[in-house]
Protein backbone atom coordinates (compact mmCIF):
# COMPACT_ATOMS: atom_id res chain seq x y z
CA UNK A 1 0.00 0.00 0.00
CA UNK A 2 1.25 3.46 -0.86
CA UNK A 3 1.63 5.77 2.12
CA UNK A 4 0.84 8.35 3.29
CA UNK A 5 -2.81 7.48 2.79
CA UNK A 6 -4.93 10.50 1.97
CA UNK A 7 -8.03 10.67 4.16
CA UNK A 8 -8.57 14.41 4.08
CA UNK A 9 -10.94 14.83 1.14
CA UNK A 10 -12.87 17.50 3.02
CA UNK A 11 -9.78 19.70 3.01
CA UNK A 12 -9.30 19.26 -0.70
CA UNK A 13 -9.50 16.59 -3.37
CA UNK A 14 -7.14 15.65 -6.15
CA UNK A 15 -8.32 16.60 -9.62
CA UNK A 16 -10.03 13.69 -11.31
CA UNK A 17 -7.87 12.70 -14.32
CA UNK A 18 -10.95 13.11 -16.51
CA UNK A 19 -11.19 16.70 -15.30
CA UNK A 20 -7.54 17.39 -16.05
CA UNK A 21 -7.93 15.97 -19.51
CA UNK A 22 -10.73 18.43 -20.25
CA UNK A 23 -8.68 21.32 -18.90
CA UNK A 24 -5.39 20.73 -20.69
CA UNK A 25 -6.17 22.26 -24.11
CA UNK A 26 -7.23 25.47 -22.41
CA UNK A 27 -3.73 26.10 -21.11
CA UNK A 28 -2.05 26.05 -24.49
CA UNK A 29 -4.24 25.70 -27.58
CA UNK A 30 -7.60 27.26 -26.79
CA UNK A 31 -6.18 29.80 -24.41
CA UNK A 32 -8.36 32.77 -25.37
CA UNK A 33 -9.87 35.35 -23.07
CA UNK A 34 -13.57 34.60 -22.84
CA UNK A 35 -14.25 38.34 -22.91
CA UNK A 36 -12.58 38.77 -26.32
CA UNK A 37 -15.41 39.36 -28.75
CA UNK A 38 -13.44 39.96 -31.93
CA UNK A 39 -11.89 36.59 -32.72
CA UNK A 40 -12.35 32.87 -32.51
CA UNK A 41 -9.95 32.45 -29.56
CA UNK A 42 -12.35 34.45 -27.44
CA UNK A 43 -15.43 32.72 -28.84
CA UNK A 44 -14.03 29.29 -28.14
CA UNK A 45 -13.19 30.24 -24.58
CA UNK A 46 -16.60 31.80 -24.08
CA UNK A 47 -18.35 28.69 -25.39
CA UNK A 48 -16.34 26.56 -22.95
CA UNK A 49 -17.20 28.86 -20.05
CA UNK A 50 -20.89 28.78 -20.92
CA UNK A 51 -20.82 25.01 -21.24
CA UNK A 52 -19.29 24.77 -17.77
CA UNK A 53 -21.92 27.17 -16.46
CA UNK A 54 -24.59 24.78 -17.69
CA UNK A 55 -22.83 21.85 -16.05
CA UNK A 56 -22.68 23.61 -12.68
CA UNK A 57 -26.26 24.83 -13.02
CA UNK A 58 -27.42 21.31 -13.73
CA UNK A 59 -25.73 20.03 -10.58
CA UNK A 60 -27.86 22.31 -8.41
CA UNK A 61 -31.00 22.52 -10.58
CA UNK A 62 -30.47 26.16 -11.44
CA UNK A 63 -30.56 28.19 -14.64
CA UNK A 64 -27.08 28.78 -16.12
CA UNK A 65 -27.61 32.55 -15.96
CA UNK A 66 -27.81 32.21 -12.18
CA UNK A 67 -24.26 30.88 -11.87
CA UNK A 68 -21.48 33.37 -11.34
CA UNK A 69 -17.80 32.42 -11.34
CA UNK A 70 -15.56 33.20 -8.39
CA UNK A 71 -12.16 32.13 -7.12
CA UNK A 72 -13.70 29.68 -4.67
CA UNK A 73 -16.07 29.51 -1.75
CA UNK A 74 -14.36 32.11 0.36
CA UNK A 75 -14.98 34.68 -2.32
CA UNK A 76 -18.47 33.38 -3.04
CA UNK A 77 -19.40 33.64 0.65
CA UNK A 78 -17.99 37.15 0.91
CA UNK A 79 -19.83 38.26 -2.21
CA UNK A 80 -23.11 36.71 -1.10
CA UNK A 81 -23.07 38.03 2.45
CA UNK A 82 -21.54 41.46 2.00
CA UNK A 83 -23.14 41.86 -1.42
CA UNK A 84 -26.65 41.31 -0.04
CA UNK A 85 -26.07 43.37 3.10
CA UNK A 86 -24.80 46.36 1.15
CA UNK A 87 -27.39 46.10 -1.62
CA UNK A 88 -30.37 45.92 0.73
CA UNK A 89 -29.11 48.22 3.45
CA UNK A 90 -32.23 50.40 3.10
CA UNK A 91 -34.43 47.38 3.83
CA UNK A 92 -32.83 46.17 7.00
CA UNK A 93 -29.69 45.62 9.01
CA UNK A 94 -29.98 42.12 10.43
CA UNK A 95 -28.36 38.84 9.39
CA UNK A 96 -28.53 35.35 10.88
CA UNK A 97 -25.94 32.59 10.88
CA UNK A 98 -24.73 29.79 13.16
CA UNK A 99 -21.61 29.46 15.29
CA UNK A 100 -20.40 26.34 13.47
CA UNK A 101 -20.11 27.97 10.03
CA UNK A 102 -16.79 28.13 8.23
CA UNK A 103 -14.60 31.17 8.88
CA UNK A 104 -15.39 32.28 5.35
CA UNK A 105 -18.94 32.97 6.58
CA UNK A 106 -18.19 33.98 10.17
CA UNK A 107 -15.61 36.59 9.27
CA UNK A 108 -17.67 38.43 6.62
CA UNK A 109 -20.47 38.49 9.23
CA UNK A 110 -18.11 39.94 11.82
CA UNK A 111 -17.00 42.50 9.27
CA UNK A 112 -20.61 43.55 8.76
CA UNK A 113 -21.10 43.78 12.52
CA UNK A 114 -18.25 46.25 12.64
CA UNK A 115 -20.09 48.22 9.93
CA UNK A 116 -23.18 48.56 12.09
CA UNK A 117 -25.16 45.50 10.99
CA UNK A 118 -26.66 43.18 13.58
CA UNK A 119 -25.86 39.49 13.45
CA UNK A 120 -27.65 36.70 15.28
CA UNK A 121 -25.29 33.80 15.98
CA UNK A 122 -27.45 30.72 16.37
CA UNK A 123 -26.12 28.05 18.74
CA UNK A 124 -26.21 24.37 17.81
CA UNK A 125 -27.03 21.27 19.80
CA UNK A 126 -24.63 18.44 20.61
CA UNK A 127 -24.94 17.07 17.10
CA UNK A 128 -24.36 20.39 15.37
CA UNK A 129 -28.01 21.06 14.52
CA UNK A 130 -29.66 24.46 14.64
CA UNK A 131 -33.06 24.69 16.28
CA UNK A 132 -35.54 25.73 13.59
CA UNK A 133 -37.83 27.24 16.22
CA UNK A 134 -34.96 29.42 17.32
CA UNK A 135 -34.29 30.38 13.72
CA UNK A 136 -37.93 31.27 13.15
CA UNK A 137 -37.95 33.36 16.31
CA UNK A 138 -34.84 35.23 15.21
CA UNK A 139 -36.32 36.33 11.87
CA UNK A 140 -37.58 39.92 11.99
CA UNK A 141 -38.79 42.64 9.64
CA UNK A 142 -35.22 43.89 9.53
CA UNK A 143 -33.64 40.55 8.60
CA UNK A 144 -31.94 40.55 5.20
CA UNK A 145 -30.22 37.21 5.03
CA UNK A 146 -29.92 33.82 6.67
CA UNK A 147 -26.64 32.03 5.98
CA UNK A 148 -26.52 28.39 7.03
CA UNK A 149 -24.22 25.83 5.49
CA UNK A 150 -25.47 22.78 3.63
CA UNK A 151 -23.11 20.50 5.53
CA UNK A 152 -20.47 21.14 8.14
CA UNK A 153 -16.88 20.67 7.08
CA UNK A 154 -15.66 19.34 10.44
CA UNK A 155 -18.42 17.06 11.64
CA UNK A 156 -20.45 16.55 8.48
CA UNK A 157 -23.81 17.48 9.98
CA UNK A 158 -26.27 18.27 7.20
CA UNK A 159 -28.71 21.13 7.78
CA UNK A 160 -32.38 20.72 6.80
CA UNK A 161 -32.12 23.06 3.81
CA UNK A 162 -35.72 22.57 2.67
CA UNK A 163 -37.14 23.57 6.05
CA UNK A 164 -34.78 26.51 6.41
CA UNK A 165 -35.62 27.63 2.88
CA UNK A 166 -39.32 27.43 3.64
CA UNK A 167 -38.99 29.49 6.81
CA UNK A 168 -37.01 32.16 4.99
CA UNK A 169 -39.48 32.28 2.11
CA UNK A 170 -42.40 32.75 4.51
CA UNK A 171 -40.67 35.76 6.03
CA UNK A 172 -39.35 37.13 2.74
CA UNK A 173 -35.76 36.72 3.90
CA UNK A 174 -32.97 35.64 1.54
CA UNK A 175 -31.32 32.28 2.22
CA UNK A 176 -27.65 31.73 1.45
CA UNK A 177 -26.03 28.35 1.92
CA UNK A 178 -22.33 27.56 1.89
CA UNK A 179 -22.52 24.24 0.04
CA UNK A 180 -18.77 23.79 -0.30
CA UNK A 181 -18.80 20.30 1.19
CA UNK A 182 -21.94 19.11 -0.55
CA UNK A 183 -21.44 18.42 -4.28
CA UNK A 184 -21.42 14.74 -5.13
CA UNK A 185 -22.11 13.93 -1.48
CA UNK A 186 -25.71 15.09 -1.03
CA UNK A 187 -28.62 16.34 -3.11
CA UNK A 188 -28.56 20.04 -4.01
CA UNK A 189 -31.64 21.59 -5.56
CA UNK A 190 -32.05 25.34 -5.29
CA UNK A 191 -35.73 25.13 -6.23
CA UNK A 192 -36.82 22.32 -3.96
CA UNK A 193 -34.66 23.60 -1.11
CA UNK A 194 -35.66 27.25 -1.47
CA UNK A 195 -32.11 28.52 -1.77
CA UNK A 196 -31.43 32.06 -3.01
CA UNK A 197 -27.63 32.04 -2.94
CA UNK A 198 -25.23 29.10 -2.85
CA UNK A 199 -21.42 28.95 -2.63
CA UNK A 200 -19.44 26.21 -4.36
CA UNK A 201 -15.75 25.45 -4.72
CA UNK A 202 -14.31 23.16 -7.39
CA UNK A 203 -11.40 21.76 -5.38
CA UNK A 204 -13.75 20.05 -2.94
CA UNK A 205 -15.22 17.86 -5.66
CA UNK A 206 -12.30 16.76 -7.81
CA UNK A 207 -11.91 20.03 -9.70
CA UNK A 208 -8.98 22.44 -9.56
CA UNK A 209 -8.18 24.88 -6.74
CA UNK A 210 -8.84 28.58 -7.09
CA UNK A 211 -12.18 28.41 -8.87
CA UNK A 212 -15.70 28.41 -7.49
CA UNK A 213 -19.17 29.69 -8.13
CA UNK A 214 -21.96 31.63 -6.51
CA UNK A 215 -25.51 30.76 -7.41
CA UNK A 216 -27.65 33.92 -7.39
CA UNK A 217 -31.41 33.49 -7.81
CA UNK A 218 -32.86 35.38 -10.76
CA UNK A 219 -36.61 34.85 -10.20
CA UNK A 220 -38.88 34.69 -7.14
CA UNK A 221 -37.18 36.76 -5.95
CA UNK A 222 -34.55 38.33 -8.15
CA UNK A 223 -31.51 38.69 -5.90
CA UNK A 224 -29.20 41.64 -6.43
CA UNK A 225 -25.71 42.05 -5.09
CA UNK A 226 -23.35 44.93 -4.49
CA UNK A 227 -20.15 43.99 -6.31
CA UNK A 228 -17.14 43.54 -4.06
CA UNK A 229 -14.60 44.03 -6.82
CA UNK A 230 -14.77 46.84 -9.33
CA UNK A 231 -13.39 46.51 -12.83
CA UNK A 232 -14.33 45.40 -16.30
CA UNK A 233 -17.88 44.43 -15.39
CA UNK A 234 -17.55 40.70 -16.02
CA UNK A 235 -20.23 38.33 -14.77
CA UNK A 236 -22.94 40.95 -15.26
CA UNK A 237 -21.07 43.44 -13.17
CA UNK A 238 -21.20 41.31 -10.05
CA UNK A 239 -17.66 39.98 -10.27
CA UNK A 240 -15.12 41.74 -12.44
CA UNK A 241 -11.93 40.11 -13.60
CA UNK A 242 -10.84 37.94 -16.54
CA UNK A 243 -12.33 34.53 -16.08
CA UNK A 244 -10.16 31.58 -15.09
CA UNK A 245 -11.23 29.71 -18.21
CA UNK A 246 -9.11 26.63 -17.58
CA UNK A 247 -10.32 26.35 -14.00
CA UNK A 248 -13.90 26.96 -15.01
CA UNK A 249 -13.74 24.20 -17.62
CA UNK A 250 -12.41 21.94 -14.87
CA UNK A 251 -15.15 22.93 -12.46
CA UNK A 252 -17.77 22.22 -15.10
CA UNK A 253 -16.35 18.79 -15.83
CA UNK A 254 -16.12 18.05 -12.10
CA UNK A 255 -19.73 19.14 -11.60
CA UNK A 256 -20.88 16.82 -14.38
CA UNK A 257 -19.06 13.91 -12.75
CA UNK A 258 -20.39 14.79 -9.29
CA UNK A 259 -23.92 14.75 -10.66
CA UNK A 260 -23.74 11.56 -12.69
CA UNK A 261 -21.68 9.56 -10.21
CA UNK A 262 -23.24 10.72 -6.97
CA UNK A 263 -25.63 7.83 -6.40
CA UNK A 264 -22.98 5.13 -6.74
CA UNK A 265 -20.28 7.10 -5.02
CA UNK A 266 -22.24 8.12 -1.94
CA UNK A 267 -23.30 4.51 -1.38
CA UNK A 268 -19.71 3.33 -1.70
CA UNK A 269 -18.38 6.09 0.57
CA UNK A 270 -21.03 5.52 3.20
CA UNK A 271 -20.16 1.84 3.32
CA UNK A 272 -16.45 2.63 3.65
CA UNK A 273 -17.05 5.26 6.31
CA UNK A 274 -19.29 2.95 8.31
CA UNK A 275 -16.65 0.25 8.03
CA UNK A 276 -14.02 2.64 9.33
CA UNK A 277 -16.15 3.72 12.28
CA UNK A 278 -17.14 0.17 13.15
CA UNK A 279 -13.52 -0.95 13.12
CA UNK A 280 -12.42 2.00 15.24
CA UNK A 281 -15.15 1.33 17.78
CA UNK A 282 -14.26 -2.34 17.94
CA UNK A 283 -10.62 -1.54 18.69
CA UNK A 284 -11.27 1.48 20.90
CA UNK A 285 -14.73 1.07 22.42
CA UNK A 286 -14.62 4.42 24.27
CA UNK A 287 -14.30 6.33 20.98
CA UNK A 288 -17.10 8.80 20.31
CA UNK A 289 -18.55 9.64 16.91
CA UNK A 290 -19.23 13.36 16.59
CA UNK A 291 -21.92 14.95 14.45
CA UNK A 292 -25.45 13.93 13.60
CA UNK A 293 -25.52 10.22 12.80
CA UNK A 294 -29.01 10.62 11.36
CA UNK A 295 -28.11 13.41 8.97
CA UNK A 296 -24.49 13.45 7.97
CA UNK A 297 -22.25 13.62 4.91
CA UNK A 298 -21.53 10.06 3.75
CA UNK A 299 -17.75 10.35 3.45
CA UNK A 300 -16.86 11.93 6.77
CA UNK A 301 -16.12 10.51 10.21
CA UNK A 302 -15.24 12.82 13.08
CA UNK A 303 -14.15 10.66 15.98
CA UNK A 304 -12.97 11.57 19.46
CA UNK A 305 -10.60 9.33 21.36
CA UNK A 306 -11.15 10.30 24.99
CA UNK A 307 -8.07 11.04 27.11
CA UNK A 308 -5.86 11.07 24.02
CA UNK A 309 -4.77 14.46 22.75
CA UNK A 310 -5.43 14.92 19.04
CA UNK A 311 -2.17 16.43 17.92
CA UNK A 312 -0.08 13.75 19.56
CA UNK A 313 -2.30 11.16 17.91
CA UNK A 314 -1.80 12.72 14.50
CA UNK A 315 1.93 12.79 15.14
CA UNK A 316 1.86 9.05 15.68
CA UNK A 317 -0.01 8.30 12.48
CA UNK A 318 2.30 10.04 10.07
CA UNK A 319 1.37 7.56 7.34
CA UNK A 320 -2.21 8.87 7.39
CA UNK A 321 -3.24 12.30 6.13
CA UNK A 322 -6.13 13.29 8.41
CA UNK A 323 -7.23 16.45 10.22
CA UNK A 324 -7.38 17.19 13.90
CA UNK A 325 -9.84 19.46 15.62
CA UNK A 326 -7.34 19.77 18.37
CA UNK A 327 -5.66 22.81 19.74
CA UNK A 328 -2.10 22.69 18.87
CA UNK A 329 -2.56 22.53 15.11
CA UNK A 330 -2.91 26.28 15.43
CA UNK A 331 -0.81 28.45 17.68
CA UNK A 332 -3.63 28.79 20.18
CA UNK A 333 -4.56 26.40 22.94
CA UNK A 334 -8.18 26.43 21.88
CA UNK A 335 -9.75 23.31 20.47
CA UNK A 336 -11.83 23.70 17.33
CA UNK A 337 -14.63 26.24 17.73
CA UNK A 338 -16.97 23.83 15.97
CA UNK A 339 -16.39 21.07 18.53
CA UNK A 340 -16.63 23.59 21.35
CA UNK A 341 -19.86 24.83 19.79
CA UNK A 342 -21.29 21.34 20.20
CA UNK A 343 -20.61 21.60 23.90
CA UNK A 344 -18.22 18.64 23.91
CA UNK A 345 -16.15 18.22 27.07
CA UNK A 346 -12.54 19.29 26.76
CA UNK A 347 -11.22 15.75 26.80
CA UNK A 348 -13.38 15.04 23.74
CA UNK A 349 -12.89 18.32 21.91
CA UNK A 350 -9.12 18.02 22.15
CA UNK A 351 -9.07 14.45 20.99
CA UNK A 352 -10.92 14.47 17.71
CA UNK A 353 -9.75 13.29 14.32
CA UNK A 354 -11.58 14.01 11.11
CA UNK A 355 -11.35 11.27 8.51
CA UNK A 356 -12.78 12.25 5.14
CA UNK A 357 -12.86 9.62 2.42
CA UNK A 358 -13.14 10.09 -1.30
CA UNK A 359 -13.30 8.81 -4.82
CA UNK A 360 -9.94 7.07 -4.63
CA UNK A 361 -10.16 5.60 -1.12
CA UNK A 362 -10.04 1.81 -0.94
CA UNK A 363 -11.25 -0.69 1.63
CA UNK A 364 -7.67 -1.76 2.31
CA UNK A 365 -6.72 1.83 3.08
CA UNK A 366 -9.62 2.22 5.47
CA UNK A 367 -8.70 -0.96 7.36
CA UNK A 368 -5.06 0.02 7.54
CA UNK A 369 -5.99 3.48 8.80
CA UNK A 370 -8.31 2.16 11.49
CA UNK A 371 -5.70 -0.27 12.78
CA UNK A 372 -2.95 2.37 12.84
CA UNK A 373 -5.16 4.79 14.74
CA UNK A 374 -6.22 2.18 17.28
CA UNK A 375 -2.64 1.12 18.01
CA UNK A 376 -1.46 4.68 18.47
CA UNK A 377 -4.50 5.82 20.45
CA UNK A 378 -4.07 2.89 22.84
CA UNK A 379 -0.39 3.65 23.30
CA UNK A 380 -1.09 7.30 24.07
CA UNK A 381 -3.97 6.52 26.36
CA UNK A 382 -1.73 4.26 28.44
CA UNK A 383 0.49 7.32 28.81
CA UNK A 384 -2.38 9.64 29.74
CA UNK A 385 -2.75 10.84 33.34
CA UNK A 386 -6.41 11.59 32.58
CA UNK A 387 -7.10 7.95 31.74
CA UNK A 388 -5.27 6.92 34.90
CA UNK A 389 -7.45 9.23 36.99
CA UNK A 390 -10.62 7.94 35.38
CA UNK A 391 -9.48 4.38 36.11
CA UNK A 392 -9.05 5.42 39.74
CA UNK A 393 -12.63 6.65 39.77
CA UNK A 394 -11.82 10.36 39.74
CA UNK A 395 -14.38 12.67 38.13
CA UNK A 396 -12.29 14.88 35.85
CA UNK A 397 -14.84 17.66 35.88
CA UNK A 398 -14.39 17.99 39.66
CA UNK A 399 -10.60 18.25 39.59
CA UNK A 400 -9.12 21.66 40.30
CA UNK A 401 -6.77 22.10 37.34
CA UNK A 402 -3.92 24.53 37.23
CA UNK A 403 -4.85 26.23 33.96
CA UNK A 404 -1.99 28.07 32.38
Amino acid sequence: MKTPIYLDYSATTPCDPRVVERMLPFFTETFGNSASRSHSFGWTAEAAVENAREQVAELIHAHPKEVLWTSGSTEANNLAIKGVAEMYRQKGNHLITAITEHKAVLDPMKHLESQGFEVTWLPVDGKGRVDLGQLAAALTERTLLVSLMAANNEIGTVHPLREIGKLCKQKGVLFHTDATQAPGRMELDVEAQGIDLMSLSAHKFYGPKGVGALYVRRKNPRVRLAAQMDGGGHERGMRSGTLNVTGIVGMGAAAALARTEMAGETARLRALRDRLEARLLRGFPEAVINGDIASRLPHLANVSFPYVEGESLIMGIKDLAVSSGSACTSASLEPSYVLKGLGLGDELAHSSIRFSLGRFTTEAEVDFAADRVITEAMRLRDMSPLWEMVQEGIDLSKVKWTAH
Partner: protein
Amino acid sequence: MAYSDKVLDHYQNPRNVGAMDKNASDVGTGVVGAPECGDVMKLQIKVAADGRILDAKFKTYGCGSAIASSSLATEWLKGTTVDDAAKIKNTQIVEELALPPVKIHCSVLAEDAIKAAIEDWRQKQAAAKQNADGISGTI
Protein backbone atom coordinates in the same frame (compact mmCIF):
# COMPACT_ATOMS: atom_id res chain seq x y z
CA MET B 1 4.42 21.21 12.04
CA ALA B 2 7.95 19.95 11.84
CA TYR B 3 9.32 18.32 14.98
CA SER B 4 12.96 18.10 15.94
CA ASP B 5 14.58 14.66 15.93
CA LYS B 6 14.82 14.78 19.72
CA VAL B 7 11.11 15.49 20.13
CA LEU B 8 10.32 12.65 17.75
CA ASP B 9 12.62 10.31 19.63
CA HIS B 10 11.04 11.08 23.01
CA TYR B 11 7.58 10.84 21.50
CA GLN B 12 8.27 7.46 19.93
CA ASN B 13 10.34 6.08 22.80
CA PRO B 14 9.22 7.95 25.88
CA ARG B 15 11.49 7.36 28.89
CA ASN B 16 10.13 6.49 32.29
CA VAL B 17 6.43 6.31 31.56
CA GLY B 18 4.58 4.99 34.56
CA ALA B 19 3.32 5.65 38.02
CA MET B 20 4.56 5.29 41.59
CA ASP B 21 2.49 5.10 44.75
CA LYS B 22 1.44 8.69 45.27
CA ASN B 23 0.72 8.01 48.94
CA ALA B 24 4.24 6.82 49.70
CA SER B 25 6.09 9.27 51.93
CA ASP B 26 9.20 9.26 49.73
CA VAL B 27 7.29 9.97 46.53
CA GLY B 28 6.49 13.49 45.35
CA THR B 29 3.76 13.96 42.75
CA GLY B 30 3.09 17.02 40.60
CA VAL B 31 0.07 17.32 38.33
CA VAL B 32 -0.08 20.47 36.22
CA GLY B 33 -2.02 21.73 33.23
CA ALA B 34 -5.68 21.36 32.35
CA PRO B 35 -7.66 19.26 29.87
CA GLU B 36 -9.21 22.40 28.40
CA CYS B 37 -5.75 23.64 27.42
CA GLY B 38 -4.95 20.31 25.80
CA ASP B 39 -2.18 19.27 28.14
CA VAL B 40 -1.89 17.70 31.57
CA MET B 41 1.39 16.41 32.98
CA LYS B 42 1.86 14.14 35.95
CA LEU B 43 5.43 13.86 37.16
CA GLN B 44 6.62 11.79 40.12
CA ILE B 45 9.91 11.52 41.94
CA LYS B 46 11.10 9.00 44.49
CA VAL B 47 13.60 10.62 46.84
CA ALA B 48 16.18 9.08 49.18
CA ALA B 49 16.69 10.36 52.70
CA ASP B 50 19.73 12.34 51.54
CA GLY B 51 17.70 14.20 48.89
CA ARG B 52 18.90 12.16 45.93
CA ILE B 53 16.24 11.40 43.33
CA LEU B 54 16.21 7.63 42.91
CA ASP B 55 13.52 7.37 40.31
CA ALA B 56 11.22 9.53 38.18
CA LYS B 57 8.07 8.66 36.25
CA PHE B 58 5.63 10.60 34.13
CA LYS B 59 2.34 10.41 32.35
CA THR B 60 1.32 13.14 29.93
CA TYR B 61 -1.79 14.03 28.01
CA GLY B 62 -0.74 16.52 25.39
CA CYS B 63 0.97 17.14 22.11
CA GLY B 64 4.25 15.52 21.11
CA SER B 65 6.27 18.40 22.52
CA ALA B 66 4.54 18.07 25.88
CA ILE B 67 5.29 14.35 25.95
CA ALA B 68 8.91 14.99 24.99
CA SER B 69 9.33 17.75 27.58
CA SER B 70 8.14 15.54 30.41
CA SER B 71 10.07 12.52 29.18
CA LEU B 72 13.25 14.58 29.05
CA ALA B 73 12.53 15.99 32.50
CA THR B 74 12.41 12.49 34.02
CA GLU B 75 15.77 11.68 32.42
CA TRP B 76 17.32 14.75 33.98
CA LEU B 77 15.72 14.14 37.35
CA LYS B 78 16.99 10.63 37.86
CA GLY B 79 20.24 10.66 39.82
CA THR B 80 20.19 14.34 40.62
CA THR B 81 19.20 15.90 43.96
CA VAL B 82 15.98 17.74 44.77
CA ASP B 83 17.94 20.94 45.24
CA ASP B 84 19.51 20.68 41.79
CA ALA B 85 16.24 19.54 40.27
CA ALA B 86 14.56 22.67 41.58
CA LYS B 87 16.99 24.70 39.48
CA ILE B 88 15.96 23.13 36.13
CA LYS B 89 14.68 25.90 33.88
CA ASN B 90 12.20 25.56 31.02
CA THR B 91 14.68 27.31 28.73
CA GLN B 92 17.04 24.34 29.08
CA ILE B 93 14.26 22.07 27.87
CA VAL B 94 13.48 24.42 24.99
CA GLU B 95 17.11 24.35 23.98
CA GLU B 96 17.61 20.59 24.33
CA LEU B 97 14.45 19.76 22.33
CA ALA B 98 14.69 22.70 19.91
CA LEU B 99 11.08 23.63 20.66
CA PRO B 100 9.52 26.29 18.41
CA PRO B 101 7.95 29.38 20.06
CA VAL B 102 4.38 27.97 19.94
CA LYS B 103 5.55 24.99 22.01
CA ILE B 104 7.38 26.87 24.74
CA HIS B 105 4.37 26.43 27.02
CA CYS B 106 5.12 22.69 27.02
CA SER B 107 8.53 23.32 28.57
CA VAL B 108 7.00 25.72 31.10
CA LEU B 109 4.56 23.01 32.05
CA ALA B 110 7.41 20.53 32.54
CA GLU B 111 9.25 22.98 34.81
CA ASP B 112 6.03 23.54 36.77
CA ALA B 113 5.57 19.78 37.08
CA ILE B 114 9.07 19.33 38.50
CA LYS B 115 8.49 22.12 41.01
CA ALA B 116 5.09 20.71 41.98
CA ALA B 117 6.53 17.22 42.53
CA ILE B 118 9.34 18.58 44.70
CA GLU B 119 6.89 20.72 46.66
CA ASP B 120 4.67 17.71 47.26
CA TRP B 121 7.64 15.68 48.50
CA ARG B 122 8.79 18.54 50.76
CA GLN B 123 5.34 18.88 52.27
CA LYS B 124 5.26 15.15 52.99
CA GLN B 125 8.67 15.38 54.63
CA ALA B 126 7.59 18.32 56.80
CA ALA B 127 4.39 16.54 57.79
CA ALA B 128 6.27 13.36 58.65
CA LYS B 129 8.74 15.36 60.72
CA GLN B 130 5.93 17.11 62.57
CA ASN B 131 4.28 13.76 63.22
CA ALA B 132 7.53 12.35 64.47
CA ASP B 133 8.06 15.41 66.72
CA GLY B 134 4.54 15.11 68.01
CA ILE B 135 5.06 11.49 68.90
CA SER B 136 8.33 12.09 70.70
CA GLY B 137 6.69 14.95 72.66
CA THR B 138 3.97 12.77 74.17
CA ILE B 139 6.10 9.85 75.10
